[in-house]
Every structure is written in C-alpha cells, then in structure tokens.
C-alpha cells in the first residue's frame, strides 16, 4: 500500500503558535503567589565553607525563604535523567548544596523573594566565609600523585576508568607494516539552547510537588527530584511543556534549580520560579573536552591490524554525564566504528575544579571522530592511499553481527552508498593537491565518517529504553495523541503525528498532540536523547495506533456488514478492500462507538449494539525490537585565507542512511542545524576560564562566538539513503547526532587539502593556522 503522509514535508503543527508568540514554553509559566529565587555562587574553584550568615538577608522585606547547605538533604545522587539514580554505571557524587565547593560558580545559598530584584539584593547581604583549597584545572595534572583531591572516593581524581579490549593488541601491532601515533584534543563547548534553564516548583503543603521545567525528560526529572528530596516518586508531578526552547542534550539532567526551587517552595509555602541567566547557563552544562592518544597499526594496503586509544575526559567537579560520555566516546566513537580484530581502549573520566560537563548531541562521539577521522586522512596522505577506499575497505558490511548489540545484525546498513553518493555530489575525485590555488585563498575538500551509531539505547543495560503512547479518536474524525516523548524542537510533534495519521488512515491535520500531559497521565518514556525518538517513540505511537485501529475496524465491520480483516483505512474513510464503493467515514465509526444505544442520525433514530460501544482508543508501552545503526558521511568544501588564517566552509554535502525519511523538510533541518553547531565546534566555539580564579570568561554571546547566518555555508545538501529498517516505524531509524559529529574532522581534513596544514586541536582558529603556516610565532 502506498503511503499518504509518511515521506511528505507536512508543516509542523506547532509552527503557527511559534511564529505568533509561542505560548508553550516553560519560561512563560506563572503561578498565583509565585516567588522568584536567585542563587549565590562561589567565587572560588575549591574551598571549604566555614560559616554562612544569612540573618541580614532574611530581614530584607520581601524575602520569604533562604536556603544554605545546612538546609539541604545530604544524600548523594547523579543528575543524569536516562538512568535510575541507583544504576551501577553511575557515580553518585552530587549534592544540591555542599559545604565543599569544587568549582567557581557552585551554588552555596539561595533566596526566594517577591521579586527578582529583592532576591538579588538579598544575595548581597549573605556573608560566606571560605577556606580556600588548592585547585587543579588540568585533568592530566589532576591524575598525578600529590594533586589536590576533589572527592574522597576517587583516587588520583579518576571518577571512572573503563577499559575495553578485543583480540591481541600486541599481535596486531606486530602484524602492521606501519604504525601511526597522534594526539588529538577538543575543547569545552556549550549546547547554547536558546531558552534558558527555568523552572517553577509548587509544593502544595501536603507533601506533593508540581514541577514545570525546561528539560528533556519528564520521568527522569520526577525520579531524580523524588530521590533528592527522599520522597516517593508519585509525590512529584512533572508537567509536560508543549515544547521547550532547545536542549541538544544540555537539559538531560536535573539542575540545581529544580531541587532548590522545591526546597524554597516548602519553606515559603508558595510556588518558586528560578530562571537562569545566560552566564549561569554557560556554567551549567558543556561538551567535555577529551584528549585522545591514538596508535594505529596498518598494512601497506591500508587495512587496520591494531587500534589503540587512551582518552582523558575532563568531567569537572562532578562525574554526572562524564561517567557515561566516556563509554559512548570509546565504544561508538572509536572501538566499534570500523572492522579490526585487535583493539584496545582505555578511558579516564577525571575530576578537576572546572565546571561540570553534561550531555551534548553526539555524546562523546565528536571528540573521538575528530581524532579517528583526522588520523585516517593523515595515514592516507602518508601512504598515498585513497581516503574513500580506505574507509570502504575497513568498514562493517551489511549483515555483519552488530558490534554492540548482542544477537543482532546490521540488517540495513548503507555506509557504502553514503560514501559513494556523497563523494560524487561534492566532486571529491576532482579535488586538487594542497596549495594548487595561486592566490592567498586556498580551496580544499575533505570528509569524515560516523560509520556506526545508535537509534536509542537498546543494548545498554543500565539505560531506559521504552516508550508509550495513548491515541484517542474523536467523533469528528480526529485523534488526540498523548505521549511523554518531548519535542525539543527537532520535530517529533510532527513526525509522531504523521506516524499516527498514516497508521489510522487519517489526514495529517486530524491528529494532534495533546497539550496537557504529565507524569500522572501518560506512560513512561525514556528521554529525548540518543537519536531515539522517531525510532522508539515512533514505534510506540504505531503500536498504540494499531490497537485503536483494530477496534475502529471492528466497529466499521459491524456497520458495513463486512469482515474487519477486509477493511482498510485511508484519507479519513474505511473501505472494503477491492470495493471502493463500500465505505464509511471514520468520523461516523467513532460517532457510532460513542453514541447511546439508540443513535439519532439524519436518517432518524436507529439501534446500535453493545459490541460497538466504547471509545476508540489505543494504548502502548513498549521497548523497540532493535537498535539499528544509521551510517553517515559528511563532506565539506572550504576556503582558507593564508594571509588571515580565516576558514570559510563554502559548501557541505551530508549523506546519511536513516532507513526512511518521515518528513524530508524536518530531516534536512536536523542536518543543517547540526552543521551550525559543528562548524562552531570546528572553528570558533570555546568556553574559556580564568586560569587563576576559574571564573568563566565567555559567559555571554558577545564572548562566546557561534556561527551566525553570515558564517554558515550558502549550501548544505542532504542526501538521505533509505535502507528501510524492518524494525523501525515505516522503515525509519535515526538521524540527529552523526550530523554534528562528522563536520569537525571533515573541516580539518579539508583545511589540510587546501593548505597542507594539519591542526590536531579544536577549535581551528585563524591563529593556529597562521602559526602552522609559519606566519605567526608559536607561543
């Protein structure tokens, strides 16, 4: 049967509200009697709090509650939403407030008042006496004997130290014709969601909490907040915002704001709102800097014989995401990407007195991809091998055992086609050697691959991976879809409605996402992360739609005096297969199911049967059947001005096997946005801190530079390869993350192709290029 809605660029149902003002953001939530809270933050990167005096602040008119470490629960937790707090893989080292400060900016007190201004004044009246402690900002220094210790449990400040090994590494290197070694470094960058982290928490006085927040996971916030407060989960009701102003992984953990607002709300007996400033957001979450030591053995024909890597991740003051990012980085960024018998990887997630890292699209993979894909091009250049053929030769093949999920295979895997079609589109074979251009503007082409990635988290034993949906049909032939799956902006409101409409045979505009959902009304859902929502939540929506459809066809069968199995639904009508004249509107079927026993229609009153009665509704709560891998290759064409060191990305071509495109316009939007974030990562973005105080120096958008419309290429072309994944909804697997992973090494490789200059640390600033060209002295 041909599809009528899947594969079409239907407009987003949420677009009209967003272009006329945007009611649905958490930042708009106001409750009667609501107070405003602000947090006092430590100016020191490592200190012990000796004394806090809040008396003057408490006396200030308008101040309703004050919070210090002594008022906060001291039960340690992890902030990460996608695991239960007691998950074995996680490190519980966080407190809402602690007597020990481990980074500059850690909250040490908070005030709730009748206005933000009064709360800010009150903070100035709080006296804190600190005992400063020695601090360490460099993770490799932090691992040395004698370095300041941040946490009692972590010797040498190592939070986690995963090691994974396959085959016999020594034998692999012995078999190599060539061995390459290199060190690759990446910097700390911010997700830069546009809506700040904000929450309103209302403690009702009966031990219940209602929570509004800009976050990526309703149920994760419920579980974490209940854990922190030490109360049963059902006491916390998290309201689903219709949408949030971006997340990208940066809202994938409970912040300080939700527990602090909850504790202040209890003390003040009024709802409490906290909205972070942009400076506070910049020090709340970041992609971790990772230094990668790579050693690779290769035959003279360019086949991997041995691959070794050691990765040092700076997790900052607490482990949180750093305990898991390191594993995804090692596994999906390095170990599993290509075929190689002999492999070993060691990861170190290291505490420092820096801000705490967080989740960010790609989740450890961009750091690894920069190292691996840069080095492959270096190898090819050294040995005069074709970079496309090299990847092809070492790639996994369709049908190979899934290198991560046991018992599964790469049933749909079109990596080869990504390489071929992307190379063809950009004209890779026509590229010229470095410095071919006569003037000071040099042109270059480069590419990089993310050969393997996830569609959710099946196969990760500690991580949630199930979704749910409720679909309820209305008497006017429309349907309401309720789900806890969050649309962070990436379009799931649209794609999930498309999936439901296609399955039920309804027009797109007949399906809408309900705006009222919370943790008491919808089934559990894992977070919007790990490129999982279209695949996993899409499957759950499809399952719920099929349940509703079964009942819909049963009622229609009674009405049409036909067997339900002979009916099909399309364009709002149910028809007997092969007899297009025998049909009935879906609205009439639902009306019949919802009518009294005597239904009054235009033809007069008529009896109906007990079997027809009851709302046509479908419910699902289900884990997906697999974790199919997408594959992706990104190509860029750059120009490098060898006088100024400036790099411009002129054109990008991105090829991705996503199984099936649900919404082409939305899918392109994912790729184009991914390139914006990745070009910033490659060329300009860098969270910087004062080397003496640890204070953030790039706490606003005037100092933290990300690409504007002017810096972006005029053309980003997406090539979507449809391999039709059998376990996915209508053949879909995932898209979101690889498009942010591949551009940085592609750009580094293109800069090399343009100039012969190889930069191994991000961001690739004009200064670094000029130093490499010998036009500026190196420091």
């Amino acid at each position: 049967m041909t599809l009528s809605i899947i594969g079409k660029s239907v407009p987003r149902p949420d677009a009209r509200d967003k272009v006329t003002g945007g009611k649905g953001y958490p930042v708009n939530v106001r409750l009667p009697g609501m107070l405003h809270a602000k947090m006092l933050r430590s100016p020191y990167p490592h200190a012990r709090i000796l004394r806090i005096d809040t008396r003057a602040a408490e006396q200030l008119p308008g101040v309703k509650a004050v919070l210090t470490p002594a008022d906060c629960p001291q039960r340690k937790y992890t902030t990460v939403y996608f695991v239960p707090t007691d998950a074995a893989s996680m490190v519980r080292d966080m407190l809402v407030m602690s007597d020990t400060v481990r980074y500059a900016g850690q909250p040490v007190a908070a005030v709730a008042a009748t206005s933000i201004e009064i709360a800010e004044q009150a903070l100035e009246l709080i006296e804190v006496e600190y005992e400063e402690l020695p601090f360490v900002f460099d993770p490799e220094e932090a691992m040395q004997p004698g370095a300041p210790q941040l946490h009692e449990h972590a010797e040498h400040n190592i939070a986690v130290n995963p090691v994974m090994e396959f085959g016999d590494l020594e034998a692999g290197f012995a078999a190599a014709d060539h061995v390459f070694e290199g060190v690759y470094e990446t910097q700390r960058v911010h997700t830069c969601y546009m809506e700040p982290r904000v929450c309103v928490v209302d403690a009702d006085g009966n031990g219940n909490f209602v929570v509004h927040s800009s976050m990526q996971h309703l149920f994760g916030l419920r579980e974490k907040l209940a854990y922190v407060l030490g109360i049963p989960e059902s006491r916390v009701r998290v309201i689903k915002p219709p949408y949030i102003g971006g997340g990208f992984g940066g809202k994938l953990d409970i912040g300080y704001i939700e527990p602090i607002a909850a504790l202040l709300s209890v003390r003040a007996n009024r709802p409490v709102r906290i909205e972070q400033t942009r400076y506070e957001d910049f020090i709340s979450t970041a992609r971790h800097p990772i230094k990668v030591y790579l050693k690779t053995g290769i035959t003279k024909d360019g086949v991997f014989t041995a691959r070794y890597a050691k990765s040092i991740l700076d997790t900052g003051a607490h482990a949180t995401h750093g305990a898991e990012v390191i594993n995804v980085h090692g596994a999906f960024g390095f170990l599993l990407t290509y075929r190689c018998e002999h492999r070993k990887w060691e990861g170190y997630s290291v505490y420092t007195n820096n801000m705490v890292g967080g989740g960010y699209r790609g989740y450890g993979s961009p750091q690894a991809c920069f190292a691996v894909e840069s080095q492959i091009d270096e190898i090819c250049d050294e040995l005069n091998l074709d970079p496309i053929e090299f990847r092809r030769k070492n790639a996994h093949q369709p049908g190979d055992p899934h290198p991560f999920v046991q018992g599964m295979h790469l049933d749909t895997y079109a990596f080869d086609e990504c390489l071929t079609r992307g190379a063809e589109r950009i004209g890779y074979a026509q590229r010229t050697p470095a410095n071919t251009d006569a003037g000071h503007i040099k042109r270059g082409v480069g590419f990089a691959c993310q050969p393997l990635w996830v569609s959710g988290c099946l196969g990760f034993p500690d991580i949630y991976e199930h979704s749910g949906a409720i679909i309820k049909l209305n008497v006017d032939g429309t349907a309401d879809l309720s789900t806890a799956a969050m649309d962070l902006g990436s379009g799931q409101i649209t794609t999930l409605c498309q999936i439901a409409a296609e399955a039920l045979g309804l027009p797109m505009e007949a399906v809408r996402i309900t705006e009222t959902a919370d943790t008491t009304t919808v089934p559990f859902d894992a977070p919007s992360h790990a490129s999982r929502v279209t695949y996993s939540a899409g499957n759950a929506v499809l399952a719920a739609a099929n349940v509703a459809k079964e009942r819909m066809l049963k009622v229609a069968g009674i009405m049409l005096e036909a067997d339900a199995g002979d009916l099909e639904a399309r364009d709002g009508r149910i028809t007997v297969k092969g007899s297009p004249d025998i049909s009935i509107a879906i609205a009439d079927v639902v009306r019949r199911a919802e009518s009294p026993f005597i239904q009054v229609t235009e033809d007069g009153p008529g009896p109906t049967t007990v079997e027809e009665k009851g709302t046509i509704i479908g419910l699902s709560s289900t884990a997906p059947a697999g974790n199919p891998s997408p594959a992706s290759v990104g190509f860029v064409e750059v120009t490098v001005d060898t006088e100024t060191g400036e790099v411009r990305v002129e054109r990008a071509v991105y090829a991705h096997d996503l199984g099936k495109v649900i919404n082409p316009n939305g899918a392109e939007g994912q790729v184009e946005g991914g390139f914006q974030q990745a070009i910033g990562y490659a060329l300009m973005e860098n969270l910087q801190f004062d080397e003496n105080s640890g204070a953030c120096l790039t706490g606003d958008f005037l100092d933290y530079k990300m690409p504007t419309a002017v810096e972006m290429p005029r053309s980003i072309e997406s090539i979507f390869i449809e391999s039709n994944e059998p376990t996915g909804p209508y053949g879909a697997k995932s898209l979101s993350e690889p498009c942010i992973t591949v551009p940085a090494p592609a750009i580094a490789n293109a800069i090399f192709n343009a100039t012969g200059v190889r930069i191994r640390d991000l961001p690739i600033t004009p200064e670094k290029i000029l130093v490499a060209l010998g036009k500026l002295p190196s420091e």
Partner: protein
Amino acid sequence: MKKLVQLNVNGDTHELAVNPDETLLGVLRNHLDLIGPKRGCDSGGCGCCTVHVDGKAVYSCMMYAVSAQDKNVVTIEGLGQNNDQGNGNGRELDPLQQAFIDAGAVQCGYCTCGVIMAAKELLDTVKNPDEDEIRHAIAGNLCRCTGYQKIVDAIKLAAAAV
C-alpha cells in the same frame, strides 16, 4: 523610585509605573504579558528579544522602557491583520510568519519571533533583497536549531510574496 511611562505597543497605549532600569523586554513580558519577545541572554547577544521601535529592529533587552516613551513599539503579536470572523481562526498572518511555516524555518521556535522582526525591517526597507543582504540582516539573531538555511529560504519566500 518608579517612573510613569506611556508606551505605544502594537497600536495600544499603556500608562505604566516602571523602575528606571527596567528594560523594554522586561516590561513587555512582565507588565504587558507579551511573550513574543524572549529573553535569551539579556546582553544584546542573541536577538531573541528583537522588536520594532519606530520601525527599526532593536534588542528590547538593551533598551530601557522609559526610553520607549512616545515611540511606537511593535512586537510579533502586532504583526498580521486582525481577521476574526468568529470561527476562532484569529489573525491573518504576516507574509513572513506564513513563510516561516511554509519553509520549515521553525524548530524549537525560541529565536523565531526575534528573527521575524529582524527580517521584517529588511523587507520593509529593501525590495527583493539578495542572499547576502538577508544573511546580514539576521546576523544579530542566533539560532541553534536550523543552521539558518530554511530561515533564509523563508525570507526569500516572503520577499517574493510581498
């Protein structure tokens, strides 16, 4: 000490008592319940709060409300035509708003109202702008979702429609 200020916003006149250091953004959101202008940074760096003051696109977080006295302020809520025919369909959208929907230029949407206001000034002043003019006109507005490509497409679409 509060000051009385008379603000003309979207054709309505409001007399308000505001603190002298209150920004236009704060007054629009907190006193007038206009949620189209959004706070993204409070430091003139992101453009989410962009509104028109006497026809010019400005960051409302960088202007004191008292400075808007006797000036005409237009927010996204003031775009389009009131066309209520009692069917609940409300306002007829400005061609730019419609183009943002049609081109798929909206993702999380948090920057959208500000970008539309910046683009509106361009289309009000330049006929058939080219791609460079479009990109420079919205260079003061950050978007983290779209890579700007479909935003540029939308502005081209609207330019062709007006």
